[in-house]
């Protein structure tokens, strides 16, 4: 993807934006992290964009929205949904941003590259569908589709729902994303199997709060799990259920607000597939209350803040298909 860095420079030079919210190299070259740039020098020195720019910048807009002047922000399609959702919940101000929509054909996961048996990588670039990997042992290539982040493999939409300017072409929804396949697979299991699956996953949780910190829907001033008035605040995981409690409630709280950006699973150091909880809620909401995509627009009423008089009864959950418990 060419032109992102150039666009950042151009926007700063023209005075359209006082600062740019983009990506910079982190600890490692494959570790692009969000960064704010206020001068051309900073951009020249640190701005990076490439196949590892998976980070969703929209949440960082909350902080930038409080600053004076205009911030230029680069949003990929999935990030743009998050931005609209933030706008809908009054967490960002539209006039504070110059949004550059960046079309995206998926971001890569270093672990997938390693899993393909490629080690000692020093740089990665893309050439069409091929990923060129320079390693200390020489040049390697692999198919980009095999190196995609989990969230990108099941991309829901390439449509940019908000932008002032577009880099690349406007895209379409991806109805064939198969993003609910894994949820469906789990639904077909018996409750015992599901329970042991989730116990295996959630018991690895170390309560680092990375999922909460990265989630663009987790925007509370004070998280309910830090709220002393509720008696639900707790510091560390002390038993199996603490994580269940935390993750169920977290997923419930982002229900009908989660845009399915997949950041929770991307950042989880324990590789817990947290996005499956969100997707389960999304799938249920779609099936029971009609298709709904959080962040697709500003007007629609989120399903949890809405009702129909002829909604199904909660017992539908036990009547639906799947193995008996």
């Amino acid at each position, binding site marked *: 993807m060419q032109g992102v860095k150039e666009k950042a420079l151009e926007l700063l030079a023209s005075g359209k934006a006082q600062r740019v919210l983009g990506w910079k190299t982190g600890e490692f070259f494959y570790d692009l992290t969000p960064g704010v740039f206020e001068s051309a020098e900073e951009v020249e020195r640190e701005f990076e964009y490439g196949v590892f720019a998976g980070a969703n910048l929209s949440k960082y807009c909350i902080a930038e929205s409080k600053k004076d002047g205009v911030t230029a922000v680069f949003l990929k399609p999935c990030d743009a949904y998050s931005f609209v959702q933030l706008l809908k919940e*009054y*967490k960002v101000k539209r006039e504070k941003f110059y949004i550059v929509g960046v079309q995206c054909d998926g971001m890569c996961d270093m672990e997938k590259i390693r899993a393909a048996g490629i080690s000692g990588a020093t740089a990665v670039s893309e050439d069409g569908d091929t990923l060129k990997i320079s390693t200390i042992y020489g040049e390697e290539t692999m198919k980009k589709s095999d190196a995609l982040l989990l969230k990108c493999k099941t991309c829901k939409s390439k449509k940019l729902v908000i932008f002032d300017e577009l880099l690349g072409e406007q895209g379409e929804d991806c109805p064939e994303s198969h993003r609910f396949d894994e949820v469906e697979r789990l639904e077909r299991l018996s409750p015992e199997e599901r329970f042991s699956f989730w116990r295996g996953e959630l018991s690895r949780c170390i309560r680092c709060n990375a999922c909460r910190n990265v989630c663009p829907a987790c925007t509370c001033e*004070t998280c309910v799990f830090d709220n002393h008035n*509720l008696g*639900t605040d707790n510091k560390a995981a002390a038993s199996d259920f603490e994580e269940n409690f935390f993750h169920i409630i977290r997923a419930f709280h982002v229900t009908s607000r989660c845009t399915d950006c997949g950041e929770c699973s991307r950042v989880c150091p324990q590789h817990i597939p947290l996005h499956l909880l969100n997707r389960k809620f999304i799938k249920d909401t779609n099936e029971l209350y009609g298709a709904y995509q959080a962040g697709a627009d500003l007007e629609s009423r989120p399903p949890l803040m809405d009702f129909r008089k002829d909604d199904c009864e909660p017992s539908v959950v036990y009547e639906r298909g799947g193995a008996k418990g």
Partner: protein
Amino acid sequence: MQKIGVFVCHCGTNIAATVDVETVAKTLGKEPGVVFTTDYPYMCSQTGQQMIQDKIQELGLTGVVICSCSPRMHEQTFRKACHKAGLNDYMVEIANIREQCSWIHKDKQEATEKAVILGRAAIAKVQLNAPLTAGTSPVTKRALVIGGGIAGIQTALDIAEAGFEVDIVEKQPTIGGKMTQIDKTFPTLDCAACILTPKMVDCAQNEKIHIYAYSEVEQVGGFVGNFHVKIRRKARFVNEDVCTGCGACTEKCPQKKVPNAFNLGLDTRRAIYIPFAQAVPKVATIDPDYCNMLKNGKCGVCAKVCTAGAIDYKQKDTTIEREYGAIVAATGFNPIDLSQFDEFAYSKSPDVVSSLEFERLMNAAGPTGGTLLRPSDGTHPKTIVFVQCVGSRCEDAQKGKSYCSKICCMYTAKHAMLCREKYPDTDVYVFYIDVRTPGKNFDEFYRRAVEEYGVHYIKGMVGKVVPENGKLKVQASDLLDNRQLHIDADMVVLAAAIEPDKSARSVATMLTASMDTNDFFTEAHPKLRPVESPTAGVFLSGTCQGPKDIPETVAQASAAAAKVIGLLCKDSLTCNPCVAEPNELMCNGCSNCEKVCPYGAITYIDKEFRGPNRTTLIRRVAQVNPAVCQGCGACTVACMSGAMDLKGFSNKQIMAEVDAICR
């Protein structure tokens, strides 16, 4: 830590027979914070209450738990008793050990254990109780009625009768509404104008009633007892205070080709007009869409003929602002648009008319002077076909309404009967799905139409109406005889479904009053509070709440007035202290709580907060109006951070109860 007293009631043997009350009292004495426990045969008796009061004062109790019958029974009693001893009403909790324990269990050990647990839960809750004081808000002793039809008129008259000021806002140039257009009323067949117009005059003459005709509500703020309303008075181009209603202008105006809305376009009027002879206020109005003077400055005839000098071509819309204690929605109805029902040739033939048009054609003050004539050629119709349920009970949501419009069966019977009475040589057919006649003397009325007046009632629907050679070819089915019918009719009358007036939706939005899917206003309770909106201080009168005939409308209008009077009688309103309260420091500003509040009690403001390093930051935070909040708690769950909490049923209190029960 609270100092809690626990009082266990025997309720004679009602509790004591199955629950070992002594053990309960003793066991609960070990709970943290409990400084006194006792059991007594009748806690609710004078002696029992006295005991509680004495202990509060003697031991300085800060919380009281009473293990007794249901709080629905005696919560108020015990709150009052504690109040007298100086303890806040809301520091009292009841553990229901009668209805929900002793009465439903037989095993004494089990019941005693359960009573202890219920007592513990109540103690755990009272530990976290805080004294609550009910706020008060003053009441502005003036009511606003939106809509000046028979519903609004009746409500206003009743409120004024009780001595309160009432304003009627009516968007048309005159009050009176749909009833002014109706010829006769069922089931008595008395003339609508004869019973309505005296009421209109009463309104005009009542010094407590102020009519703002040709006006619309533009903005509503505030809450029960304290509404601020902006009313836009549309320019009539006639000075209302000066115009005498002589009508000279309406005779001299050269612009004669204006469709007469009062007669539903069946004849014409002038550009300056008084809708009908008995209009209230009886003043002229200039129709700006047709007036030559207003359109191109060429005319001025009305100003020349007006001896009172009332014409003012430069008049502008004005806005007035008023305070009200209560608002009544009486926005009424309209027949639906029939253009969707092309199978009945409504837009093709002028002889296919709606029932309301038919009323005008029968009315002595109507376009034909009360003689029933075909609009197309002015001849007497000999065969008339009435079609019922046009757009009512309709499955196609695009076309019609799913509900029954309720009034059509009766007015169609009335029309059919009047036709046969006035013109015995006409053949009258009525096609119906069902004839619905619930109401006093209604079925008798309908049977008279069939039996005495010889109206042909045919169960079945009309499939098609085709205009041909001055006739209307009606194709219909007779479901009882199971045959197709072909009738050559001279006139077809469609009983159009009725729907809420289009303005109702914007009125409801301004009032934060809820509506159903058909845009009828929702009642606070469908059975027990049918004339109140869920929004406190907003009342419902007439068809804006659902289809109604005139007697029902008037009954509901008076009921709404009674509710308004009950409210305005009070000098101040005591609020429910168990209301939602946001913690501003934790509030997210996301508006989720606002979305689920059924009362519109939550608003958002931008508020300045102190930030780090002597900075200030503006944050969007929720505000709950305690006078409007009813304390349901929907918002507390919609709030993710737990910033929104409910007093008296706080998150922590319920959690404490859960913990006490599950431990």
